[in-house]
């Protein structure tokens, strides 16, 4: 079986890799590009630990074929912080203790950033439903929800 050549953009940088036709974007990110910040919790789109942005759309990288990234832009957790500076969501998660084991955290941050870009002023219920595709087993979600709501308020200048 011959491998496919994929040319893509990851976190703003050109990237290329060879992959099997059946390989997921998650496997390619982790195994071909060494970007292990996106985690595999289920490989079935149920846990959201592999949340990434593909052409500006929030997706589970385990449900996307690597070949689908060809010619498109991918953003992962590794691209979330600016040079030398954390994204406000990252800072707020640390301030409020909104993580315990931390394995779901990259997925939550990518998903929460997508939420705030689309809905800068969400209420608690909206945050809970937007993040319902991201599983956390440690925190009971309380501090995560608070961190997203507080960041949203900060970004709106309140």
């Amino acid at each position, binding site marked *: 079986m011959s491998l496919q050549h994929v040319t893509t953009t990851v976190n703003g940088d050109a990237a290329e890799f060879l992959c*099997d036709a059946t390989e997921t974007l998650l496997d390619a990110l*982790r*195994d071909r590009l*060494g*970007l*292990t*910040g*996106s*985690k*595999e*919790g*289920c*490989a*079935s789109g*149920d*846990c959201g*630990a592999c949340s990434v942005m593909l052409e500006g759309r929030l997706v589970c990288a385990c449900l996307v074929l690597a070949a689908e990234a060809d010619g498109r832009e991918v953003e*992962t*957790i*590794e691209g*979330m*912080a600016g040079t030398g500076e*954390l994204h406000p969501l*990252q800072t707020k*998660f*640390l*301030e*409020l*203790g909104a*993580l*315990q*084991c*931390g*394995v*779901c*955290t*990259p997925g939550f*941050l990518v998903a929460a950033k997508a939420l705030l870009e689309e809905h800068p002023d969400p209420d*608690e*219920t909206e*945050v*809970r*439903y937007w*993040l*319902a*595709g*991201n*599983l*956390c*087993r*440690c*925190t*009971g*979600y*309380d*501090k*995560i*929800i*608070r961190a997203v709501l507080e960041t949203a308020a900060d970004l709106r200048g309140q």
Partner: protein
Amino acid sequence: MELEFTTRTTFDKVGTRPPRPDGTDKVTGRALYGADLAGAGMLVGKVLRSPHAHARILAIDTSRASALPGVKAVVTRDDFPGIGPDGKVKGEVEENVWDVARNVMARDKALYEGHAVAAVAATSTAVARQALKLIDVTWQVLPHVTDVDEAMKPGAPLVHEDMITAGMDPAPEEPSNIAEYTRIEMGDIEAGFAAADVIVEQTFRTEAAHQGYIEPHACVASTSEDGVAELWCCTQGHFSVRDMCANILGMDLANLRVTSSEIGGGFGGKTTVFLEPVALLLSRKSGRPVKMTMSRDEVFRASGPTSSTSITARIGATRDGRITACDASFRYQGGAFPGSPVSYGAVCGMAPYDCPNVVLDCYDVVVNRPKAAAYRAPGAPMASFAIESLLDEIAGKLDIDPVELRLRNAVKEGSSSVYGPTFGAIGFVECLEAARDHPSLEAAPGANRARGIAAGFWPNYGGQTSVTVNVNNDGTVLVSLGTPDIGGSRASMCLMAAEELQIPYERVKAIIADTSALGHNDTTGGSRVTHSAGLATIEASRRVIDTMKQRAAALWDIDVEAVVWDQGCVRPSGANAGDHEPLTFEAIAAMAPSTGGPIAGHAEINAEGAGASFAVHVCDLEVDPETGRVTVLNYLAVQDAGKAIHPDYVEGQYQGGVAQGIGWALNEEYIYGSDGVLQNPGFLDYRIPVASDLPMIDTVIVEVPNPGHPYGVRGVGETPIVPPLAAVANAVSRAIDRRMTETPMSPPRILAAIDGSP
């Protein structure tokens, strides 16, 4: 050894909420978890698992798999050294190695669907998967049993044909699936029930739940030709992984170095080994590093969920609400091997109450399911579900407020515990009072709404701990720990070191060292780390201070008795000691190279004196009578932490335990088909709570100091999962006016209860 200390009550840094030292790596994706390590020439290992719930393995032919290009090693039962039932165990292994070895790889029989029967290492995942299909196993399928009550019946299929129940006198002549019987007995049970004005009795059942950590098991093993091996894995205890693997594989402990990766949740499920010995063997056979990861499906089918249970309990009380007697039968399956947490569970259920007359019969039962592992307060939530539900019935019958009923029976300092010893300083009454007085209890529930209250207990554990505190020449400090950090414990250790050394928190960092760098550390479990590793960190920090005092005294050429440690400086103790400018921590650190060399403190201790932790939970919910769906509206968790070192992570433990408990109460269950095959091995069908299922979870941290820790710390991790099953059940039962006796309280069960059908 007894450490000398008095419990401190005022703090400078402890009790604040600074960011954790490992936090930035975790919010940026840099932190490396079990599956995140890659190395040159690394192979992929995969496991062939039994499709049958119970089957004799007549033959395994691996020749076609071995011949496949790209396959570098195949292992089966034949590759594991023989371990007799009395095999000598090295290290600190607490688990029965004979059982663990057989759980890791099936021998004569596959004992559950998902039991490992062979494994391969290949150059790619695709080749490894293809190789598994080329392994030919000749099966003789046997009758199976997965239900705990069915397994106890005479004539049930035997999981182990030769198993005679332990703990019965005289011993039974016939084998059965009852591995062990234990009776817990106190007082005069008949007199106790004779003194009761009201007696309630029910049978309860709970289905098996999984810890549901988001990170599947993963490891990388690399074995050299000289037999020395390295293992990287996500585990709650890399020292016990080392000990178990070395025992199973017949290795010297010094030949195996285990590094714990960051760990993506454990909750007890990562206290044993599954893939690790197999990966080491595959690496030994192939001469290459081997990485193994479980799929989510494998995690459900073949790691260690908790017991399903069946409990019959009877409680008597006087008219004024004093509990006079409790007798109960606890039947817990522990999967295919002995060791369900039945007797701890039984004890924990009654531990909050001062009840003079108790008989608890405990049955540890084996079935054709995966071997149970610990799950957060192992065994306690199910027992508390039964006991706390019956207390709610008594409160209803006697028309006593449920918190008041518990206050009338609550254990306090000086009370005898149901397990024997007298309680020292404990905070159960304080928790009940805090719950009673909490403002959230003022609001009255509306239609189809109700409030449920339940208490919980976990004894906590201390254990062996080894910590090093290294002082750098710039005055910063590194704490080396051997207890994997799952929920922020590095931050707590840094706070305690900073408190002792009187230096800024930001100047202290902590890491989890590998098994070669420290003395033995028991596993992160039993809610022990903040207590035990904290104790060792404080002790090691005090040794740093001792050394600093010696250095200053030597410099000033005075006796060490003539110097004191005060506000982060060494000073002369008084005018007689001479006129010397105080030396700061930083100054002494900078002088270390020229005053005798590096400054470090060690503590190698067996931390005794873990303080018991009690909790009281209050749950308000609404039941939709049309659909049976439950919506949790408000939840309050009150618990005694002794002293909260980093309150964010104490609250986080309370909230996380509540969420897991609500999931267990309402949704989560292992569903087996009549073929003994697990029907729901994925997060879609085994549904853990998602963000939209839960409300904010309110917490109250009660602080009754534990005299067994210099700052008063009690473990907090496990108790929070004990009350929720009963708190939710008591609320649902009140909302629908029917007693709920089974978990999960899924919509069909609730509708059936409303309809009055069983």
